């Protein structure tokens, strides 16, 4: 037997063989992940723009200093991103959970209703955006007609020309689009809920609310943690819905980090600056992910 810490010729040969098989994957990863990431980091330290063909001057942390101290749109973009993400995740989660609970039991036309509930999820984001544009159109949108018919408004609201209304309209559209994902995941979780636990809780005298809080929610905790984490990241990166409807306006009312980064890169052609925004954005998402994973692990241990 070879001494510990020393591998045999056969073992070394296996390692080389394994390395050869891993090489294509590593090469692809390097090409599509690490190289772009390194390029972004390098670009964020330069004043790269349309005119600077060689990649711009090295400005160190200049882009970050400007972003965090001088840029008046950036704080708005961060705030809007957080509001849009939080509202969308909470809204779609609540509606999706309610639907899952309603359609998990024996209800008439259950299969049909479950199918209907999934429709918004299969519609592409750009189509959702176009539908949103028409539905919330200030002149001919069905939302205004409905609200006026119900007596909730007297005059049509120009949704995409009012700063508060615009973000609210986008959140409503996004919740509608994403609810089926929560519905599907939570319904799947509810199907695996042990019936004996529910029966035991009933025998202990627990009502509907107590059974929900003490049996159903703990059972679904893992799923809830995963889907909310996923959806926070997805919504943080949401681009198509906002771009195809408001492009970040009116003024900066729906300006999120993804829209702001795009505007800086492809409308203002401030490539260095836009990569600095995306680096801060990436760090924010990384911080959230680390925090969330720790909370999940702590929860699992508890």
């Amino acid at each position, binding site marked *: 037997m070879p001494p510990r810490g020393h591998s045999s010729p056969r073992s070394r*040969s296996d390692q080389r063989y394994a390395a050869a098989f891993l*090489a294509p994957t590593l090469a692809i990863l390097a090409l599509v992940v690490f190289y772009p990431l390194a390029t972004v980091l390098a670009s964020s330290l330069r004043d790269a723009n349309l*005119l600077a063909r060689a990649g711009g001057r090295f400005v160190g942390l200049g882009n970050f200093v400007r972003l965090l101290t001088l840029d008046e749109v950036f704080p708005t973009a961060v705030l809007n991103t957080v509001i849009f993400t939080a509202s969308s995740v909470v809204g779609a989660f609540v509606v999706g959970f309610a639907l899952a609970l309603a359609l998990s039991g024996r209800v008439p036309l259950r299969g049909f209703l479950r199918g209907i509930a999934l429709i918004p999820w299969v519609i592409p984001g750009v189509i959702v955006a176009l539908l949103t544009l028409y539905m919330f159109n*200030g002149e001919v949108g069905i939302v205004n007609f409905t609200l006026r018919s119900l007596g909730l408004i007297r005059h049509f609201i120009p949704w*995409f*020309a009012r700063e508060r209304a615009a973000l609210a309209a986008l959140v409503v559209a996004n919740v509608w689009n994403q609810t089926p994902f929560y519905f599907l995941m939570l319904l799947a979780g509810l199907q695996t809920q042990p019936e004996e636990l529910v029966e035991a809780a009933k025998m202990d005298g627990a009502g509907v609310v107590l059974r929900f809080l003490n049996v159903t929610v703990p059972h679904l905790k893992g799923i809830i943690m995963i889907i909310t984490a996923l959806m926070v990241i997805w919504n943080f990166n949401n681009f198509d819905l906002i771009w195809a409807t408001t492009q970040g*306006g*009116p003024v900066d009312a729906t300006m999120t980090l993804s829209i702001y980064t795009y505007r800086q890169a492809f409308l*203002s052609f401030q490539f260095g600056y836009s990569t600095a925004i995306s680096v801060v954005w990436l760090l924010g998402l990384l911080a959230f992910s680390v925090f969330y994973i720790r909370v999940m692990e702590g929860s699992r241990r508890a």
Partner: protein
Amino acid sequence: MNRKAVAFLLLAASTGCGVAFAGGAAESSNGAVTLHFANWVSAEEATRKNIGDVIAAFQQQNPGVTVDNVAIPFDEMHQQLLIETAGGNPPEVMQLNGPWPAELGGLGALADLGKYADQAFLDDNWKGGLEAGTYNNVLYAVPFGLTPHGFWWNKKLFAQAGLDPNSPPATVDDLIQDIKVLKSKLPSDVYPIALDTTKIDYALTEFWPWILTYGGRPMYNGSYDFTTPEVRKAFQFLQTAAQNGWTPVGQQIKDERELMANGKVVMKLDGPYLVGILRSLNPNLAGQAFFDTFGVTTVPLGVGDTPVTLADIHQLGMSAQAKQPRVAWKLIQFLVSSEISVKEYQVPYGLIPSLKSTVAKYPDLYANPVAQAYIKSVIPSMIGGPYDPQYGAAGQFIIRGMQQVAVGGGDLDQTLKDITSNLQTLYGK
């Protein structure tokens, strides 16, 4: 096969497969030339066949020349050209719009067409058309078709409001007076005028004629001052129109056109292609009905007695890297002036020809009232935009300011100061 051979093949497969795609030249060994012509009209259903026929005719007249028709949707065209330029692989001939010639020219990506265009060709163009493609005194693009914004009005709605249907407002004072009459006499869901208050880039393109007609020339000649009285008047007009319900707010240009096609907007600035667009949105406007309903003239005068509008036109440019520039220029000239281009593409698309001689040569094609109004009054009033390679970034500050005063409740003077300050920082002034 031994392990070393397997490993080598895997590595080769993962690293070397791109080599086969490299290369490609404009001229082959037998002298045949291939030109890449990037354009958005081939990406649009309405014009794809027409421009294809024009290209086929060029190839027939020029044996040995193949035109690779590169169709790129308009929304992606700008970025695609920049990406291809940055990648060192631009098309030899490209369709351009607005500030693109200045941006690409500033990058060194476009050829100086002044080296290829003779004086007769230049003299045959409208001054404003050439200005639109000139940056730093270099002609980077020539007009492909003229599409400046004229002032359109609905004659029937004018008559319905008790105004003379054949007397559009000559000045902005007349315009405001007419707006007040239209607002008071027409149903509440009819807007006297449409001004773009959205955040899309085109909102600024549509607003420039108002700034110009009030006498404002910010960003021209190195001045970035938006606080001048002339510019202030234009922004004041926008703010008043939005706040008083003279214009629909938050409506993108396609929505404004839809409203206009259906009698919900009385006046707006738009290009000559509006004829086809409104007809497609409202079949009742086919034939003479359109000309009975709509008229077009110059932008109402704000100051002085010379009307003005922005030369927002379609252009053609040539790559600075074109290996056969003479052949590329030949294609550009063919696209601009050949009979098949005029009849199969320019006229059906609603473009006014860029060459005066074309109008003289085919008078019957331009006999309708819209073409006549454009040729006689709108086109002579157009001037080039204040374009430069930083225009894209500058435009973001201006559009933000437009939204602030129109729908954001922002203070007018403070907004104009902010725009000025941001532009001065951007341009290092």
